[in-house]
């Protein structure tokens, strides 16, 4: 099923949670809504689910208006950050809930319900927990049960609100891969909200980057990482060096000194130069675009992170391969392999 949002606006008091959002989600897609807290991503998800109503705009499911139907009629599977399992019901009854509350005319028989719940518990690989209560499960298990419960009603859309947000780092990683595999096997149009860029880039087919109630960029994980459309996206995704520069007469100046890089069509005025930390190439002190001295070095994993005091008058952090020897006090030259210049300070 396709989902389309058109000009969706939502305010809470004086706070503008969504400020004119347009979005199309293709059938069977796995989409991530990524943004900092307060960016409106959860509000958008809740509006799609029918748990919240927009002040203006439209939500279309397969081209049909969804706003005249409540959460109950939308057939949307919703997974909450804090699971929202029914504490007084066993795992089995939690999953069976959606089937038991169906109108009598279409309700399945007890045997059919049992078979379906068993099937779902197998799908989330927790069939051995059927008789337990939510309080007896770990966070990761609870979230998988919540997912099985949402899938029981054969939803047309699956919505997940920070599904792994309350879990520890290791479990998160496991569940990410698991979610991608699961989506592949059930193939339901799915949207998940996250503030964790790694999660979004690793799991989703397409990533929607949001900030302050607006969509900043929509694209594949590669697109948003390699070709950020706005300064916000560049700063939010991946780790970037940001230097305030001035564009005058087609040349880039840092603190009044010209840099030997092209302005690449950036408009004159105050701008910001963005470079990925690992895109700074290290050379001899008399080469490169920027120059400075190493003031601090830390090594972890495959890279080392060095703090450089620039002679141009800023301090930046760069990532370098570990085989490039760096010592405190070394004078080096830096040249950005890739960079972007966005207007604004």
């Amino acid at each position: 099923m396709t989902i389309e949002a058109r000009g969706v606006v939502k305010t809470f008091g004086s706070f503008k949670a969504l400020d004119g959002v347009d979005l199309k989600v293709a059938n069977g897609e796995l989409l991530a809504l990524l943004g900092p807290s307060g960016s409106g991503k959860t509000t958008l998800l809740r509006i799609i689910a029918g748990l919240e109503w927009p002040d203006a705009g439209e939500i279309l499911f397969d081209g049909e208006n969804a706003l005249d139907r409540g959460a109950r009629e939308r057939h949307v599977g919703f997974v909450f950050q804090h699971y929202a399992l029914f504490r007084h019901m066993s795992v089995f009854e939690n999953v069976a809930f959606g089937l038991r509350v169906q109108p009598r005319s279409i309700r399945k028989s007890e045997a059919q319900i049992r078979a379906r719940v068993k099937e779902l518990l197998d799908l989330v690989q927790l069939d051995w927990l059927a008789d337990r209560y939510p309080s007896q499960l770990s966070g990761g298990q609870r979230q998988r049960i919540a997912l099985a419960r949402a899938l029981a009603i054969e939803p047309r859309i699956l919505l997940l609100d920070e599904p792994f947000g309350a879990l520890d780092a290791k479990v998160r990683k496991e569940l990410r891969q698991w979610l991608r595999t699961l989506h592949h096997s059930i193939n339901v149009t799915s949207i998940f909200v996250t503030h964790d860029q790694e999660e979004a880039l690793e799991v989703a087919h397409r990533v929607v980057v949001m900030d302050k109630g607006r969509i900043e960029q929509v694209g594949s994980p590669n697109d948003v990482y390699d070709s950020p459309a706005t300064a916000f996206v560049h700063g939010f995704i991946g780790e970037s060096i940001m230097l305030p520069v001035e564009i005058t007469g087609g040349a880039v100046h840092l603190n009044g000194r010209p840099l030997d890089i092209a302005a690449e069509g950036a408009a004159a005025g105050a701008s910001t130069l963005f470079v990925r930390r690992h895109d700074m190439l290290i050379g001899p002190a008399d080469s490169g675009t920027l120059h400075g001295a190493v003031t601090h070095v830390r090594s972890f994993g495959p890279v080392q992170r060095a703090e450089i005091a620039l002679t141009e008058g800023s301090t930046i952090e760069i990532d370098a391969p570990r085989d490039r020897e760096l010592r405190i006090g070394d004078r080096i030259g830096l040249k950005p392999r890739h960079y972007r210049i966005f207007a604004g300070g």
Partner: protein
Amino acid sequence: MSVLAPRRSTLPGFGLTMGLTLTWLSLIVLIPLAGLFVRSTDLSLAQFWDIVTSRRTLSALKISFGLSFAAACVNLVMGTIVVWALVRYRFPGRRLFDAIVDVPFALPTAVAGVALTALFAQKGWLGAPLAAAGIKVAFTPLGIFIAMIFIGIPFVVRTVQPVLIDLDPEIEEAAASLGASRWHIVTKVILPSLTPALLTGFALAFARAVGEYGSVIFIAGNLPNVSEIAPLLIVIRLSEFRYADATAIAVVMLVVAFVIIFAVNRLQRWAQSQAST
């Protein structure tokens, strides 16, 4: 106590607090109650049995426990509705209503009794129209029932209120997104989550009604076998200097009340184990 003691604990003070607890409970609760039992042994078993199974005693016990139970049931239902309104909706005067719920807690019971009697007497504001409809409240078991409802309602409201406030709205949203109707959400999700608190509220309201004296005796009329509650019968026996009779009735009340409270407690524990996080 060497079986329990020698383990280092991050919560020191077990010995001190346990000792104080036992001493205090003994002084305040156990010793007076034990005295009651000792006193009742002045009677032979046959005498005890005669007193306890006399028509007047049995009627009084039946009235006390039966009406208390009925009143607690009413309080359970009405109290839940009151809590719902107070917690879930914002309306003018909500805080005032919230405060009014506590009035039966604080009001001297005799004052409540006088007020209720005046209200439900033949010529009272409510008594007159009810009498016209052929319903007599004051000086009948119905009056006892109403007094017991009056004093019991805050117990249900105050025990259920914090639990309902803490109930995560996401639970209801989850149920709605799974296709549950409002009715299903209330009966299958909300009420079961409240069950332990509801049982506690019920038990407290029931216990309070069984022990209630002041407000009931004004409105009851106190006709033996008809509208005489067991606590009153005890007082009557005491004023007749029939102390053994009084303690015999008291012992029966104590045992029955204990059994009921214990049963509710177990039930509540069971419900809690089903609903804990």
